[in-house]
């Protein structure tokens, strides 16, 4: 009996203990995640609008490689010969292979660039999927949201097209778990890009209270640009005509050229009449990723408080880019390509100490030179006169020039810059992906190709007339012009298609110098091998350490598909581009 009662007692105590342990609620093991949202919360109008903001935010390639920058300073400027890496040999040495046309498929930055583009695309696709699930969106809002998302998707595929040519095309019907990893790469997705941009053009409103949104005309401009890249010149011309006649910015300004050339790149003047499609940037946001972080390295070096940024001397304009601004007595560029000759090349302070005397070039130059390229002895915005070598990390390696477009002013420090990170160079000027000046020059190209040369000349002269405004020229402290600026219009009618083409292309180079277009322009024109070989021939004599032995070879028009992606996806699905 005693044993029996003991066991009863034991059972009771054990039962009590177990009860104690498991008295908690049944869902003790269900611990919800913190700080996150579920799909259901986003499948609402507010959620979809937020997801759309998230898609826009990828315009800055935030958190990914600087190679993925919207201004393409690596692939547009450096590959295009507008600039070189800058700085010194050991700094960010993976870019050495880019500027020498020796990039390997294994390079991490290349993979990160690919990932940035597809992250953006996946966000646009996500918006389209969520929008389809949400029940509280009006038909009008749905069209706008779809239009913006499809514009963004089209834009990023356009970038991919320019950089890699061949890529997997993923739309909102494919996702994780629904075959996304089986999509092979192909060059044949121009039609998809066009379809997205066409949808956006047809469905987006012209204006919005929120200036950062893309509108109908931005979509039209991007679509026309896509036509141009495909050499669909008459479609392009038709659309350009429509845009030039009727286009306006999202904040309702009729498209036009900013009177003062320098004001195109000034944060204080964001979303101006020339801003067709711009990447919006901002300060005081809690993260410098919302500024133009991708340009944080692209300031002169060791400037202290005399100059902007802290760092690091990347993206230094090339000799070739600077010399191209030489003009003849009529203020017209040297279309014969003789600008690099000893007689025409700009006088520079290469290998001259800042403490040694130097007088800048006294010859005639296009005034846009000193808006695009920082050089010794010329006022560097409202900072000091560029002191030359003291502001260059390794002048023997990278040459004498500094970037100058999209640089913030001294007066804007901490009011239009974000000082919260390791360097001061986080500024808030928009990068304008398509500006009206760019659009006019693209229209001019289309006009040349369809044969209306005089219309092309008219467009080019519009561009030149704006730049010829003396009030916008860089001035010394005494108010005089900082250099011998001369700029003339093309007064003689254009009769040769070839000559007109040359003039339009040269104008594009000058107008858009350092703005990230050059390499892609060369490739679509098909003149990359010739132009870049000449460029290297000129630079490698001067910058021997940087360019000694470098050459451009056919097949390097497009970058290699990142090896990491081929490894993950399988070589049977992702095929490497030719030449790698």
């Amino acid at each position, binding site marked *: 009996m*005693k044993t029996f009662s003991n066991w009863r007692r*034991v059972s009771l*105590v054990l039962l009590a203990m177990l009860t104690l*342990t498991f008295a908690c609620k049944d869902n003790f*093991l269900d*611990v919800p*995640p913190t*700080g996150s*949202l*579920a*799909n259901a*919360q986003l499948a609402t109008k507010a959620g979809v609008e937020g*997801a759309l903001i*998230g898609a*826009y*935010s990828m315009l800055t390639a935030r*958190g990914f490689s600087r190679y993925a920058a919207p201004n393409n300073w690596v692939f547009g400027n450096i590959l295009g010969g507008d600039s070189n890496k800058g700085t*010194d040999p*050991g700094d*960010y*040495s993976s870019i*050495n292979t880019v500027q020498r046309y020796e990039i*390997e*498929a294994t390079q991490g930055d290349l993979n990160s660039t*690919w990932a940035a583009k*597809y*992250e953006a695309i*996946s966000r646009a696709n*996500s918006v389209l999927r969520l929008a389809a699930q949400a029940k509280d969106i009006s038909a009008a809002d749905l069209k706008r949201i779809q239009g913006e998302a499809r514009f963004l998707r089209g834009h990023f595929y356009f970038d991919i097209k320019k950089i890699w040519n061949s890529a997997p095309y*993923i739309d909102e019907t494919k996702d994780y778990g629904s075959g*996304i*990893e089986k999509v092979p790469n192909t060059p044949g997705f121009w039609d998809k890009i066009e379809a997205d941009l066409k949808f956006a053009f047809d469905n987006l409103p012209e204006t919005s*209270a*929120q*200036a*950062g*949104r893309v509108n109908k005309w931005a979509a039209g401009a991007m679509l026309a640009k896509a036509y141009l890249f495909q050499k669909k010149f008459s479609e392009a011309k038709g659309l350009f005509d429509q845009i030039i006649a009727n286009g306006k910015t999202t904040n309702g300004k009729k498209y036009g050229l900013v009177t003062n050339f320098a004001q195109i790149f000034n944060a204080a003047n964001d*979303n101006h009449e020339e801003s067709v499609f711009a990447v*919006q940037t*901002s*300060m005081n*946001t809690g993260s410098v*990723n919302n500024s133009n972080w991708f340009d944080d390295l692209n300031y002169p*070096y060791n400037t202290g408080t005399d100059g902007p940024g802290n*760092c*690091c001397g990347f993206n230094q304009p090339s000799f070739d880019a600077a010399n191209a601004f030489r003009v003849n007595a009529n203020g017209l560029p040297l279309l014969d390509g003789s600008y690099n000759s000893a007689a025409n090349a700009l006088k520079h302070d290469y*290998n001259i100490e800042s*403490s040694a005397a130097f007088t800048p070039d006294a010859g005639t130059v296009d005034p846009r030179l000193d808006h695009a390229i920082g050089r010794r002895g010329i006022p560097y915005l409202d900072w000091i006169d560029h002191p030359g070598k*003291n502001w260059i990390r*390794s*002048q023997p390696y990278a040459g004498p020039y500094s970037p100058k477009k999209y640089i913030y002013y001294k007066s804007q420090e901490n009011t239009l810059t974000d*000082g*919260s990170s*390791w360097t001061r160079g986080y500024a808030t000027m928009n990068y304008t992906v398509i500006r009206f000046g760019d659009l006019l020059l693209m229209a001019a190209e289309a006009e040349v190709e369809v044969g209306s040369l005089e219309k092309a000349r008219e467009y080019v002269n519009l561009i030149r007339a704006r730049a010829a405004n003396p009030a916008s020229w860089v001035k010394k402290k005494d108010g005089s012009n900082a250099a011998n600026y001369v700029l003339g219009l093309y007064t003689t009618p254009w009769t040769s298609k070839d000559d007109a083409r040359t003039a339009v292309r040269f104008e594009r180079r000058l107008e858009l110098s350092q703005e990230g277009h050059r390499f892609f322009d060369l490739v679509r024109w098909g003149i990359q091998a010739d132009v870049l070989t000449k460029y290297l021939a000129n630079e490698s004599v001067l910058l*021997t*350490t940087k360019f*000694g032995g470098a050459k451009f070879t056919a097949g390097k028009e497009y970058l290699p598909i990142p090896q*990491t992606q081929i*490894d*993950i996806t399988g070589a049977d699905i992702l095929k490497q581009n030719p030449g790698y």
Partner: protein
Amino acid sequence: MMETKLSQRWTDRLSKSGLLFVFLLMTSGLYAQISGKISDKATGDPLIGASVLIKGTTTGTVTDVDGTFSIAAKTGDVLMVSYTGFTAIEVAVGTDAVLNITLDEGVQIEEVVVTGYSTTKKRDFSGAVSTVKAAELKAVPSGNVEQQLQGRVSGVTVVTNGQPGTTSIIRVRGFGALGGNEPLYVVDGVPVGSTDFLNPDDIESTTVLKDAASASIYGARAANGVIVYTTKKGIKNKGKVNITYEGLFGATDPNVAGAPKMLTPQQQADWTHIAYENNAAANGTAVKYNHPQYGTSKQATLPDYLHANGQNGVRGSVDLAAIQAAAAASPGTVFLIKPNKEGTDWYDAITRTAGIMRHTLGFQGGGDNSKFYMSLGIQDQEGILIENRFKRYTLRANTEFNLTNKLRFGQTLQFTYRSVLAQQGDGGGAGIADDESQVLSAYRMPTVIPIRDELGQYASTKAGGFNNPRNPVRSLDLNNKDDRSYNAGGFGNLYLEFDLLKNLLIRTSIGGNYFSSFFKNYNYRYLGDSEPEASNSFSEGSSNGFGWVNTNTATYNLKLGKHNFNILAGAEILNTGKGRFINGSGLNPFSTDLDYVNLNVVQSPVVNSGLFSGVNFESLFSKLDYNLNDRYYVSATVRRDGASRFGINSRYGVFPAFSAAWRVTGEDFLKSNTFVTDLKVRGGWGQMGNSNNVDPANQYSLYAANRGNSFYPISGQNSGADEGYFRSRIGNQDAKWETSTTVNVGFDATLLNGKWEIVADLWSKKTEDLLYTVPLPAVVGNSASAPAVNIATMSNRGIDFLVINRGKIGSKVTYDASWTSSILKNEITYLAPNITFFGGAGYRGVSPIRNQVGQPISSFFGYNVLGYFKDKAEVDGAPAQSGKGVGRFRYEDINGDGKIDPKDRTNIGNPVPKYTGGIVFNVSFKNFDAGTYLYTSLGNSIFNFSKWFTDFHGSFEGSGKGVNALESWTPALGNNAKAPIWESASNISTNAGENSWYVEDGSYLRVQYLSLGYTLPTTMIRRLGLSKARLSIAGTNLLTFTKYTGLDPAVGGAVDTNFGIDVGNYPTTRGFTLGVSLGF
């Protein structure tokens, strides 16, 4: 109905007996207070601190300074009496209230191991465990007791660094998973993530459970081994309180002489010009000497001023008055820097002789029905880097009360304040080696730059031509001097033990861990660097949280003739810690006065916060130990764990283990031999789980908002941005536990009456269902965390070996020596379909690590250097190789395709030591004792990436360079050169390729400890009112033997898939300490 009856009967009985405890006494035998004295049989000396434990329970005590003990036991209990270096014995409790027990010296150590939820004699144990003596945890001062496991426990790999208070790589039997390989720490029954809060003087026992047979009682969290600490308890019936004082004072020398040598200012200038000549030769151009400082002629010279208010390389005099006026007009922007022609030793400048002290005051005692241990501890330890400092204050109170003869209540409690200042390195300091730390800055600063300029400000690379290093003295001083950071918390548990039946013990405990932290951080504007800090910045933040555990166990002992059973069953629920954090930062307050600055007065304030819920566990476990006649042992364990970390589909895991042992010496045929005193052969198999390497949110598909990742100023505003969302995670509902299957065979042998002891284990641990985040193609969108899936496998195999020898030399000198060995082979055996590797971090464009199937974790992968190209002919004749040139690296064409490209990279080393071991030797003579401890780590490689900065002219040209420049490639040196040709170029044939030139043998042998102690004679100290007094002096890290050329071969890392890279390690250096140990 039953309850009614039962309670009726209870009431009846209570009414009959009057009081519950009387009833308890009646039903289960009488407890009586047994006391006695334990002494050495040979000498009669009392044995102080001998352990007395009631068999099958956790009830025990230790003898006091007179060798006496007192314990509540009942007739039929068996007391297990043990003392280090003496044969343990078991004494049955009879009717005598006083038991005087004598022990035989030197026969066998009878260690008691605390294995999970119970305590067992090591003699009866069939799993693989190691114990560490309390004294060994205190020998070398460190900020975290876990560091003391290095070389002292076979099967445990420890890689640590010289920062006081750092975290370390502590791995029990290899690297079981691709991350989250930290062992489970259990302190007084409460699982914790870190033991850095413990005062080593409080620790009574440390047990490392290594194989499944011993650890799988911890089931899902045991795969990486379990380290069980118990803290000191009180002593019952002590009569008086035993007060002890342990003090330690010392200093650590930074080993300036051992730091890598840098070029002198003139050498740096000369070699800059040599580089210009080499550049010109390589490019076929004329030489230009155009460094801003070194003059334009072939012979480089140093200027009179490196920098004078904007002018660089000034020769001649400067207008000092004008410069001073400019400096006064614009403070902080004007510098006047003279070259330090003798050369600045930057390593010397950032280091110091670092002091340390530790004090622990202990109170131990008890009465008839209670006992207690209390202590106060202080450790204050400077790091050898200026401003680096570790402080810990601890208060511990452990008590136990007999509420009735059958019911005991106890608690352990500790409050800790812990502060680590100016610590560097990811992951709490463990990542210091591969960070670009201030140690690296000391190498990167050219020696010609003085610490301060002529105006008394810090000098730096404002002087042109020296690239972008920052003055590390300035960084350490200005950016740390006002910072504060600390953790404060309480930790402890409450338990009830109830002898429900004879031999049936019920125990319930509730443990908790409250943690909080606070930091504030001031960084100051400084414009003297070429890439300056332009703003004064301020940040502060805090966090807090609470984790808890409730454990309930029942232990039952049964002896049926020759059959001995011990059964444990238990249930446990816990939460690993729930809490919140908040922090903020901002810039440029009006004044930097510390009494002024807060987040209200800064510009661009940013505030972040977050919350975390921890992981909930719900577990049942059971263990059965059986032995036949103390000769044949069988043990079985099973645990079922459920965790909130996994989705509903696979939340639970079951982890079984079995082991058996045979005491060979128990057999008749060995009874008569005198050589083998004791021999036990063991074997075990079992499974354990791990889930550390997966986010608790892994089961969910989620979206998130993040200012850095998804905000956008959609209105075109230049200030502020709008909230946006992005997909942050793709979930996997099916993820489940990683499972390690362990096989262990071993033996424990005692020879010649304890003169020799050998413990050997051969083991294999195969981890399956490893949670691996299979990389998703970027088209999915890489901002979303890819789900971890159970797919990869890993293998670890090894041999653990321990040999102990002890004895006497002559009649006066006694010694003991132990040799601990661990042999480890780690291999990733599978990752995922099509995936054969994944990489590690990139270092300035160099990616040295590849975690690859068939190789150990974190292996080095790169080009194999055949030598340096000797001449143009060799260059031209060699396979195509980007950037190839005379004096540059020539790589092996691994795949033989006639060109060198990334496909020619191969395995060039790995950081996992093949062998680690330690030798401890203690000797005593009369009142003197001496001890030493050697540690060795063999067979690992180090990727010495610091050479990228110091050994190439082209790596941040102009910055500080090392003396390998002097032996850089020339035709005469050829392949004997220590670095490639001195030049500017940077490509994969020079500094930009991951290659075998960086890889060095990381093996080393270190004399970690050498001490001499003197115990004052009893007669002398009695007069001082002391019961014990010992003085000791010790040297730590006295000598290191290694071929490694970096500062310190102990190169760790913050994550297991990326370690062994040395970018500038924080060295472990020589120190001396004075110890005082007093008993009152």
